[in-house]
């Protein structure tokens, strides 16, 4: 049988890293083939090899049975390989059809752009695959799900027979994901081959025919969808049993710790991004804030950090109104944070692990000796934390930049939890983390809740919100459009709220 893609013993070495270790794969024509693995498992490297961005150190690539030498993206495109990147490569001020035909424009009379033909062709291809778009719409105005559709059309327009989708659902709502899956099924019917990269096991089990698990650059196994389950895949990925559901202790929420009253926050453009929201967060409770990206989460988190001034309204902690909008004042009053962007907000990358473990606490009694750093205490403190939080490698003097993403996040969690805060604000705390590290962060959040802290979890990952939160508030267009208890919440219902297709009457969310 002729395979769409056949890889034989592909090895790719970066200085000091074995990114792909002797990988052999056979991908059939017309199948949806998923590749899952933790961050750094080598998924993206392998895709870039197929797409011709990297040259393997050894091994052979066959496309449609033909050996490929000196692969380049240009050659890959000619051979019918198309890649839909995680971050879209679209010109936002161009219309849909302009984006699709870009680089393959139709010319009339030798030099004039034939717009009519372009629109026609785009319509034709969008009808053919049932990917509905309005060719004249400006791309920047479209929701993310439709933009992704434009990306897929762009690839199809270039005659792709093999589509590589790199983490396509990372930016989508549940409804949009469903639509994407319909698209994928339609493409499959048309005998297109699809390579689906993801680390979300549920999705992979839903859409893929076969699933390949990578770990440390090696193939750990290739499973048929029918013969496997989430637990098995997770074990292959991480190399040990992973707890997917984290048990919470039965706790009655205590008195409110954080209160937000009629809060209005402006965006960078000076228009309200948060339009008068109210919520209360209590002891022994995780409040999840769900929503599609760009509905005010960023502004809300920054205001709760003290990085962004509030326009009106109040933030109260333990009944005391925050009067000074400076990050140190928030922290002094019992806030701690896990940021969504650990490399920018969470860590000083050129600093050692040890230095990062007490960032912001350097003027506390234990950490200083007069005007000097108390190096003795710092040494003990950081080796304790490295041990306690299983930060690897176990060397607090290592530059934090040299750690993996999961271990970097552990450094942040260790620091923030050691503040012993009243409120822990976790903003997308597992973004970009693999299953193992994710489990760790989730455990720590639940631990905090169980020990009587209040946790505010802001996340775009619905699964995460639904699993951890005691209550879920949905943010849409700067407003809380609904609040559900963990029992009430279904993916369907939350999805409708997130898209603004439904809203509950304005009631005091508490």
């Amino acid at each position: 049988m002729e395979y769409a893609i056949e890889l034989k013993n592909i090895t790719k070495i970066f200085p000091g890293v074995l990114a792909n270790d002797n990988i052999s794969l056979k991908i059939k024509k017309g199948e949806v083939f998923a590749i899952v693995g933790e961050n750094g498992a080598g998924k993206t490297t392998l895709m870039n090899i197929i797409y011709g961005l990297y040259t393997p150190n050894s091994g052979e690539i066959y496309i449609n049975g033909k050996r490929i030498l000196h692969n380049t993206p240009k050659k890959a495109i000619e051979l019918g390989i198309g890649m839909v990147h995680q971050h879209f490569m679209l010109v936002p001020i161009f219309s849909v059809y302009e984006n699709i035909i870009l680089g393959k424009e139709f010319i009339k009379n030798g030099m004039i752009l034939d717009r009519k033909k372009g629109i026609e062709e785009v319509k034709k291809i969008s009808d053919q695959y049932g990917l509905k778009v309005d060719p004249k719409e400006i791309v920047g105005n479209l929701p993310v799900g439709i933009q992704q559709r434009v990306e897929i059309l762009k690839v199809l327009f270039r005659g792709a027979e093999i589509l590589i989708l790199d983490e396509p659902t990372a930016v989508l709502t549940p409804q949009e994901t469903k639509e994407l899956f319909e698209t994928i099924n339609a493409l499959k019917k048309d005998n297109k081959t699809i390579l689906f990269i993801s680390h979300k096991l549920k999705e992979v089990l839903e859409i893929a025919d076969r699933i390949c698990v990578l770990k440390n650059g090696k193939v750990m196994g290739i499973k048929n969808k029918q013969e496997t389950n989430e637990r098995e895949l997770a074990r292959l990925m991480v190399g040990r049993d992973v707890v997917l559901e984290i048990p919470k202790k039965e706790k009655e929420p205590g008195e409110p710790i954080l209160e937000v009253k009629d809060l209005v926050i402006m965006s960078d453009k000076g228009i309200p991004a948060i339009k008068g929201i109210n919520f209360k967060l209590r002891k022994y409770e995780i409040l999840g804030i769900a929503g599609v990206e760009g509905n005010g989460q960023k502004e809300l988190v920054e205001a709760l950090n003290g990085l962004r001034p509030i326009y009106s309204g109040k933030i109260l902690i333990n009944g005391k109104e925050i009067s000074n909008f400076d990050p140190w004042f928030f922290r002094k009053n019992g806030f701690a944070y896990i940021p969504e962007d650990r490399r920018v907000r969470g860590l000083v990358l050129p600093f050692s692990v040890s230095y990062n473990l007490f960032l912001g606490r350097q003027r506390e009694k234990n950490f200083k000796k007069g005007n000097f750093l108390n190096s003795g205490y710092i040494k003990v403190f950081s080796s304790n934390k490295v041990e306690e939080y299983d930060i690897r490698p176990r060397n607090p003097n290592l530059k934090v930049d040299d750690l993996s993403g999961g271990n970097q996040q552990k450094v942040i969690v260790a620091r923030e939890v050691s503040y012993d805060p009243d409120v822990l604000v976790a903003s997308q705390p597992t973004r970009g983390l693999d299953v193992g590290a994710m489990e760790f962060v989730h455990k720590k959040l639940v631990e905090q809740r169980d020990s009587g802290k209040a946790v505010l979890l802001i996340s775009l990952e619905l699964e995460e919100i639904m699993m951890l939160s005691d209550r879920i508030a949905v943010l849409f267009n700067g407003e809380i459009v609904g609040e559900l208890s963990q029992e009430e919440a279904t993916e369907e219902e939350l999805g409708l709220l997130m898209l603004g297709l439904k809203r509950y009457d304005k009631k005091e969310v508490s």
Partner: protein
Amino acid sequence: MKNLAFDNINKILNWWNAKKEDISTFLVPIISIIIAFFVAAIMIKMTGKSPIAAYKLLFQGALGSSLKEFLSLKQAGEGILKGAILTLTGLSVTVAFKAGLFNIGAEGQFIVGAIVAAYFGFKFNLPPLIGIPLILIIVGITSGLYGAFAAWLKIKRGVHEVITTIMLNWIAIHLVENWIVVGPFNILRYNPQAVLAGTPYISDSSRLKPLFSGTRLNSSIFIAIIAVIIIYIIINKTILGYEIKATGLNIIAAKYAGINTAKTMIVSMFIAGALSGISGACMILGTEGRYPGVFRPGYGFDGITMSLIGNTTPVGTFVAAIFFGLLRAGATGMQLIGIHKTFADIIQGVATIFVAGQAGIKYLLFLIGEKRVVKPREAHDGSY
């Protein structure tokens, strides 16, 4: 045997791969300076002179023509003195750099320090051990505030410090040289018979005296060394240094973690200003004895170079400053065969360019360690 040799090469390569980041921080400035010497040699050759003869004179001019002369510091003293002045302005740039600020204003802070030292050196007639430290403290505070002003503008108004410090340089130069020195603090007001333009001479007790006869080298060098030690300790051992580094390396994370980054920037620019000011004071109290009619020393601008070549560390800045101090003093010697002393500037300039473009040198250095693993077979077997 052959295997053994390969093993050893591999061992060296592995060691290099592990250490290359650290080693190249020292290697890059040294290589840059060597390249600079080559470039200058080509230029000397183009003027028809012998580079070897020129460099010999340069060397002798810097250190002395014999070991004995070198050890007596008669010849080298001049270079070390220049080096001391450059160390202080270089440290100024280094401290600001650690906080993520580019202090182009060392020149202005230097001039403010110089005029303040000239004034109090003239007014005070105290015992040297009290008077001189007192002058240095006053200078430190004045120039420190002048430096901190730029940081304050950045925090309050969002103006970039490169813009403000450059503007503050010109404000200082014109206020001092076109007003104070020719107006209210002109020598003619105190001594109508004076011939040379400038401010009146400072009192004898305010002078930094030469350490021994036959040289101008004075205790500026001790002031510079003490400053290097203090700044080293501040940056590496204190809470303030920790906050300065955190702010400089990632201001967002520092702020997020609750560090008062505004205060940190103001304090570091205050220290930077004070160091430049003290450098200017050393120049007045030691070498000039007053603020001359036309000064324009350029030590502030050179401080940027010293800091960059010194890899923006206190000790590195010191080494670079002493090296270039000696080089400039020695360059005077090259004039014997008709090479202008500004050739030292060419060497300094070329070295700076290469240090600034260190990514290129590092790339070449790192190529050494790249192991060539099995290459993909490149045979064309007729397929694609």
